[in-house]
């Protein structure tokens, strides 16, 4: 029995007793089941496994603490009405917001945060980490940590602009189709069907093979691939609004299509559209990451998470985990956006499962 094991179990038992004494059922159940699980795993796997469980639990607790604090912070700085709604946000949602906020900071202030330039060669290839380089060097001797920071700007920026392009095209077409109806609606619907029946990655590869891997080609390709999905949703949401009486009244007043879309339909369908934007961003982000992993995304020497994984993949066969960090960064942001979208969908639909 090492000191760590004794301390670990003592802390767990004291914490669960405290929770039980103050009649906090949720925390008590969590803490006590953690104690039991650690007990079983500790017997089976020894102190090493126990340390792993403890680290995992500590990371979870730390994330929960950060999200809790961040939510309280948001509640205080937000206007009263928004603050009230934020108070009901689950911890996962505030964790998502915190992650998005962090990525935003990293992307905007990348040149000030990163110790070195993104394409600056400062060491030999695959040099190990030292006090100068937090995560070591990549395959050309550039600082890995700086490149990850710059990657936030390049990868997320590309995915975001592609999503905005797809969204603009899809939403405008959907709103027009819903208000105009008739042959335009039919034609756009069939067109969207055809595009959606081609697998997205395959279609992107086809377009990139023809027009070459340039940033603007990627944005246009992604916009063409994802606009039909946005079109469908906008068409469905706006279709429900179009049949309302106030639209009829506006039409009788003699308002034009532009006014109808801007002042009557759009304000009544923003909530699902914002949630859709988040989901769409996740898909686009993963697609763009996949493309750049295949070497068809942002071209070197610009730092980009997908291609960084591919370029440094040889390190993995030596048991080094650093090439996984950019991939993990992609996953973390996608999870975070999903958490926030989940909460927004839940809020806007007022959906309560029993």
């Amino acid at each position, binding site marked *: 029995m090492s000191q760590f094991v004794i301390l670990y179990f003592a802390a767990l038992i004291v914490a669960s007793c405290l929770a039980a004494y103050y009649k906090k059922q949720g925390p008590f*159940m969590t803490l006590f089941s953690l104690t039991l699980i650690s007990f079983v795993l500790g017997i089976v796997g020894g102190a090493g496994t126990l340390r792993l469980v403890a680290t995992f639990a500590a990371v979870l607790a730390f994330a929960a603490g950060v999200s809790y604090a961040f939510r309280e912070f948001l509640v205080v700085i937000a206007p009263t009405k928004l603050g009230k709604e934020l108070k009901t946000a689950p911890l*996962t949602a505030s964790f998502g917001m915190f992650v998005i906020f962090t990525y935003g900071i990293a992307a905007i202030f990348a040149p000030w945060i990163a110790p070195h330039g993104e394409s600056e060669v400062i060491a030999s290839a695959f040099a190990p980490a030292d006090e100068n380089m937090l995560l070591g060097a990549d395959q050309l001797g550039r600082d890995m940590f700086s490149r990850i920071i710059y990657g936030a700007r390049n990868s997320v920026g590309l995915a975001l602009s592609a999503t905005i392009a797809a969204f603009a095209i899809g939403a405008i077409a959907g709103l027009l189709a819903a208000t105009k109806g008739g042959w335009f609606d039919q034609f756009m619907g069939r067109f969207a*069907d*055809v595009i959606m*029946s*081609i*697998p*997205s*990655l*395959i*279609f992107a*590869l*086809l*377009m*990139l*093979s*023809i*027009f070459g891997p340039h940033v603007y080609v990627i944005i246009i390709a992604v916009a063409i691939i994802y606009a039909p999905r946005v079109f469908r949703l906008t068409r469905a949401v706006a279709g429900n609004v179009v049949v309302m009486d106030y639209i009829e009244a506006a039409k009788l007043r003699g308002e034009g299509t532009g006014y109808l879309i801007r002042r009557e339909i759009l304000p009544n369908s923003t909530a699902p559209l914002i949630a859709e934007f988040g989901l769409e961003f*996740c898909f686009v982000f*993963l697609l763009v*990451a*996949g493309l750049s*992993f*295949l*070497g*068809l995304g942002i071209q070197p020497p610009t730092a980009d998470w*997908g291609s960084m*994984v*591919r370029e440094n*993949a040889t390190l*993995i*066969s*030596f*048991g080094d*985990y650093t*090439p*996984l960090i950019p*991939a*993990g960064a*992609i*996953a973390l942001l*996608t*999870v975070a956006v*999903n*958490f926030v979208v*989940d909460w927004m969908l839940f809020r806007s639909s007022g959906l309560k*499962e029993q």
Partner: protein
Amino acid sequence: MGDIVNLVLKRLGFGLITLLVISVIIFFMVELLPGDIAQAVLGQGATEENVAALREQMGLNNPAFVRYFEWLGGAVVGDFGTSIVSGERVSTIITERFINTLFLAAYAAVIAVPFAITLGVVVALLRNTLFDRVANVLTLTSISSPEFFLGYILILFFAVKWQMFPAISSLSDGMSFAELLDRTFLPALTLVLVVTAHMMRMTRAAIINLLASPYIEMARLKGAPPWKVIVKHALPNAWAPIINVIALNLAYLITGVVLVEVVFVYPGIGQALVDAVSKRDFPIVQACCLIFAATFILLNLAADVGAILTNPRLRHPK
């Protein structure tokens, strides 16, 4: 019976038309190349005679729609022309790789489908418990991770640290089946992780949707035991959504395979497509795209037909 056959035939017809439109898109997109294929293959520095000779050899002097019908006619009987880069028949390059890819997808599906459906039903029955929440977070993480992230994590642990499975799936002729399963285990597992998460979430949603319907409440109120409610009342109606979920995810599997094949250097059609894209070998790109699109459409079609067959209400569209 007659109207079912009719409906299925109608769906098949729609699928065929979609495929035809897609083949038009795939073919004429290459025509959008600045210059033409011959110029693109030989590069800027090529002499005029060389380009003209290649044009003659590839039949580029015919009008585009004539070449389209020649290409389509060939594609129907499995002849996709010759590769620009290596000069080999495209069909010989692709056939074996396509079989490998189908094997990988089938391997993953055989593990993932029963596993995901069972878990989905269990999670739906235990909804809003701690188990459900943990499952929700885990599946969401797995969906949100790029395939190459999961693949490399598996390589790091299973191949490098614990040395249980090979990191690179090199296949050779005359391998025993057990050896084949061992070599392709990690890529299959990666696909399983991604697809299971999707399938589980969709199954859960379908079942929960079903359990909220009035006839389930009726069955409960009349005192039927819980297992009977599930097996006799819920399950027959759940088949349609579940079949849908399976088919959609198999379609997803076919395309998710591209990234996984690259990670594990698996000799499949996805890898061939990626190679061809970077070498700008258009006949192979076109062939692979057509095959992927056809598989995708076929599986979606299967989902539609399966839903129609198991749900009598869909047979009489309003």
